[in-house]
C-alpha cells in the first residue's frame, strides 16, 4: 500500500482524535468537583497576613461542602504557597489556570502579586477574586476586588480623627506603591476637610530606627500622626514612639495598624488610643459575627488562633460571594458567574451585608472606625453600605466592559485625581 498525501492526513487526523479523546474524557470526569484554587503566602515575610487568610478560605470551602456543595457538586480546594515570592505567584497562577483548570482563583496579598497574576488569569479566562484591602483602581471585568479601598476607610477616618484631635496631620507611610497612594489619599482628604498636612515621610520596608523621625515630629508639633506603615520592621515605630513618651501627647490614626495584628503584638500601654478604620473588626457586636469568631477559633486551636481581621474575614466572604453567584447563575461558567455577580450578588457575612458594586467589580460594604483599648478594638462608629467611590471615579465596567487597567498604578495624579 502506497501512502498518498490524502491517506496520510486521514491517518494522522484519526490518531489525533484518538489521542485527544482522553483529554476530553478527563475533563468530563474532573467536572464532578468544582475547583477553587487559592494562592496565598503561608511562608516568608508575608505569612503573618497569609496564614489567617488561608485558615479562613479553608473554613469557607468546608462550610459550603457541609451544606451540600454547590449545584449538587462538591467544591475542591487546592492551595498553593507562593512563599512571599512574585515568581511563584505567576508560576502557580499558570498552573491553576492551565493545568488545574480552576473554576475560580482566589489569590494575592500585595498589589504586586495581584498585578503579576492578573494578566495570566485574564489570558486563560479564569475568574479571579482578590480579597485584600488595597489602594483601589483595578478595573477589569474578569477580576473582583472585595477588600476595602481608601474611599471606604481613609475617607471616613480622616474627618473622624480631625474632629477629635485637630487639623495638622503628619503622615508616615511605607515606601512602595501602596504607601505612596494611601499618602496621596490622606493628603487629599485632609485638604478636603480644611486641614493641613505638615509633612509626609516614606520609609523603606526594612527601616527599624525611627529616632530621627520622632524628633522631627516633635519639632513639627502636629495634632495627629497618620500611619500607613506596613510589615514587621515598621512595628518598631509604634514601640519607639511609645518609648519616647509621644503616644501620650500626639495620637495616631491608621488604616494599616491591626491587619498584621499589631495591636496584640504590642503591650496595651503602647497601643492604647490608636484609631483605625476597616470593613471588619473581630469585636463587631452582632450575633452572626460572634458565632463566626467562635467557630473560627474552635477550628484553629482555640486561644492560640490568630486574631481575625479584615484580610482573613474577607477571604471567607470572598469565597462566599463567589459561591452565592454560582448558585444564582446555576452554573460555574465564567461569564454566567460574572453576570450573576454584577446582578449584583449580595451576602450577609461576619462583617455585615456585602455586595458587589457592578460598575467597578469592587464591594459595597460596611466600614467601622475603632479605637485600640487594652489590645482590643472598640468600635466607635459604623457606616453602612459604603461604595468604592475612589475606583468609581475612574472605572465603569458597565459602559466599557473591555477595560483592563490598574488606574492607580502611577499614583493619583496620573489617574487624574487630585
Amino acid at each position, binding site marked *: 500500500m502506497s501512502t498518498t498525501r490524502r491517506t496520510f492526513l486521514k491517518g494522522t487526523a484519526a490518531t489525533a482524535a484518538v489521542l485527544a479523546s482522553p483529554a476530553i474524557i478527563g475533563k468530563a470526569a474532573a467536572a464532578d468537583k468544582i475547583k477553587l484554587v487559592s494562592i496565598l503566602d503561608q511562608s516568608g515575610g508575608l505569612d503573618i497576613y497569609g496564614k489567617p487568610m488561608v485558615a479562613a478560605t479553608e473554613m469557607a470551602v468546608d462550610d459550603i461542602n457541609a451544606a451540600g456543595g454547590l449545584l449538587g457538586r462538591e467544591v475542591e480546594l487546592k492551595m498553593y504557597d507562593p512563599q512571599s515570592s512574585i515568581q511563584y505567584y505567576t508560576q502557580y497562577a499558570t498552573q491553576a489556570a492551565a493545568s488545574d483548570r480552576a473554576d475560580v482563583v482566589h489569590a494575592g496579598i500585595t498589589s504586586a502579586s495581584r498585578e503579576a497574576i492578573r494578566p495570566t488569569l485574564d489570558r486563560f479566562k479564569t475568574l479571579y477574586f482578590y480579597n485584600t484591602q488595597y489602594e483601589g483602581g483595578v478595573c477589569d471585568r474578569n477580576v473582583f476586588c472585595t477588600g476595602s479601598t481608601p474611599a471606604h476607610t481613609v475617607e471616613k477616618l480622616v474627618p473622624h480623627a480631625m474632629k477629635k484631635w485637630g487639623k495638622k496631620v503628619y503622615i508616615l507611610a511605607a515606601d512602595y506603591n501602596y504607601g505612596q497612594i494611601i499618602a496621596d489619599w490622606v493628603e487629599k482628604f485632609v485638604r478636603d476637610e480644611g486641614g493641613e498636612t505638615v509633612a509626609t515621610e*516614606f520609609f523603606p520596608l*526594612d527601616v527599624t530606627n525611627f529616632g530621627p523621625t520622632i524628633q522631627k515630629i516633635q*519639632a513639627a508639633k502636629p495634632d495627629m500622626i497618620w500611619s500607613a506603615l506596613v510589615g514587621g520592621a515598621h*512595628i518598631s515605630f509604634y514601640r519607639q514612639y511609645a518609648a519616647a513618651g509621644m503616644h501620650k501627647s500626639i495620637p495616631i490614626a491608621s488604616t494599616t495598624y491591626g491587619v498584621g495584628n499589631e495591636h496584640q503584638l504590642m503591650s496595651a500601654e503602647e497601643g492604647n488610643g490608636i484609631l483605625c478604620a476597616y470593613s471588619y473588626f473581630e469585636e463587631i457586636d452582632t450575633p452572626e459575627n460572634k458565632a463566626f469568631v467562635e467557630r473560627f477559633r474552635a477550628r484553629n486551636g482555640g486561644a492560640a488562633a490568630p486574631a481575625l481581621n479584615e484580610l482573613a474575614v474577607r477571604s471567607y466572604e470572598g469565597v462566599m460571594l463567589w459561591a452565592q453567584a454560582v448558585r444564582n447563575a446555576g452554573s460555574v461558567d465564567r461569564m454566567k458567574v460574572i453576570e450573576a455577580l454584577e446582578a449584583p450578588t449580595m451576602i450577609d457575612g461576619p462583617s455585615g451585608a456585602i455586595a458587589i458594586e457592578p460598575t467597578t467589580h469592587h464591594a459595597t460594604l460596611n466600614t467601622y472606625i475603632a479605637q485600640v483599648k487594652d489590645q482590643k478594638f472598640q468600635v466607635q462608629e459604623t457606616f453602612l453600605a459604603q461604595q468604592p467611590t475612589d475606583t468609581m471615579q475612574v472605572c465603569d465596567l458597565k459602559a466599557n466592559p473591555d477595560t483592563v487597567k490598574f488606574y492607580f498604578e502611577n499614583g493619583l495624579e496620573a489617574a487624574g485625581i487630585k
Partner: protein
Amino acid sequence: MDLYIALALQIVYGIANLVLISLGLAIIFGMMRVINLAHGEFLMLGGYTVVISTNAGLNIWLAMLILAPLVVGIIGVIVERVMIRFLYGRMVDTLLATWGLSLVLIGLVTTIFGAQTATTISPPIGAIQIGDFTSSGYELFLIGVTIILSILAYCALKYTRIGLIARGTMQGAEIASALGVSTSRTYAITFGVGAAVSGLAGGLLAPITGVLPSIGATYIAKAFITVISGGTAILAGTLSASTLLGGVNSVLSYLTGPTIGEVGLLVVAIVLLRLMPQGITARLFRRSL
C-alpha cells in the same frame, strides 16, 4: 537648642545602634575571616530568648543582659563545632553554609513560635525630657551599653591572656599553633563570643523593635556593610565605619527623610570601598584592634 541636643542624641544612638548590631559579626569576621550570613538570625534568637523568658516571668534585665548572650553563645559554639570548623579558609562555602543555617533557623523558629509573636514587652526605662523634647530613655541606656561593650572588648583583647592568644591566632594561626596554642579551641571560643555579642544585641533591641522570625533580614545588610567598610580591625573598624555610616544615615534621615538616609548610607559605603577596598582600617588606624 533643645532640638539640637535631642538631635545629637539621635545621631549618637544611630551610631551606637550600628555598632551594636555589627560587633558580633565583626568579631567573627575579624578573627576568622568567616562571613556569617546567619548573623541576623543570631540577633533574632537573642530577641526570642528575651521575649520568651520575660513572658515566662523572668526579670527583663536578667533576660537581656545574661540569658540572651548565654543562649546564643552556646548555639554559636555548637554551630562552630558541627559546621563552621570544616569550612575554614573556604569563604564561599561558609557563605553558603551559613546562609542555609539562617534559613533553617527562620524555619525552625516559625514552626515553634508561629509567624507572628506577641512581643508585649515594653522598654524597661521610660521617656526622658530634654527641654520641649522627649526622647527615649532606653535609647540612652543602649548608648551606654554600647560604650561599655566596646571598652570591655578592647580590654579583653589588649590585656588578657585569652585576648593575646586570640590576637596571635588571628595574625598567624600556624605560628600560634606551633607555640602550643590550640587554634581550633580558640576559633570555637571566638565564634561563641561573637554569637554571644549578637545575642546580647538582639536581646537589647527586642523591646524597641520587636521580634519576628524574619526580623534578621532587616539587620543583616547594614551589619555587613558596616563590617566590610570597617575592615578587619574588629573595634576600630566597627567604630569608625559605624560613626561614618550611622552619622550620615541619621543626619540625612533628619534633613530629608529615611529613604534618602538609607541611600546616603549605601552611597558612602560604595565610595568608601572604591577608595579603600580593604575597608577603613586597612588604610587608617592600621595597627589598632
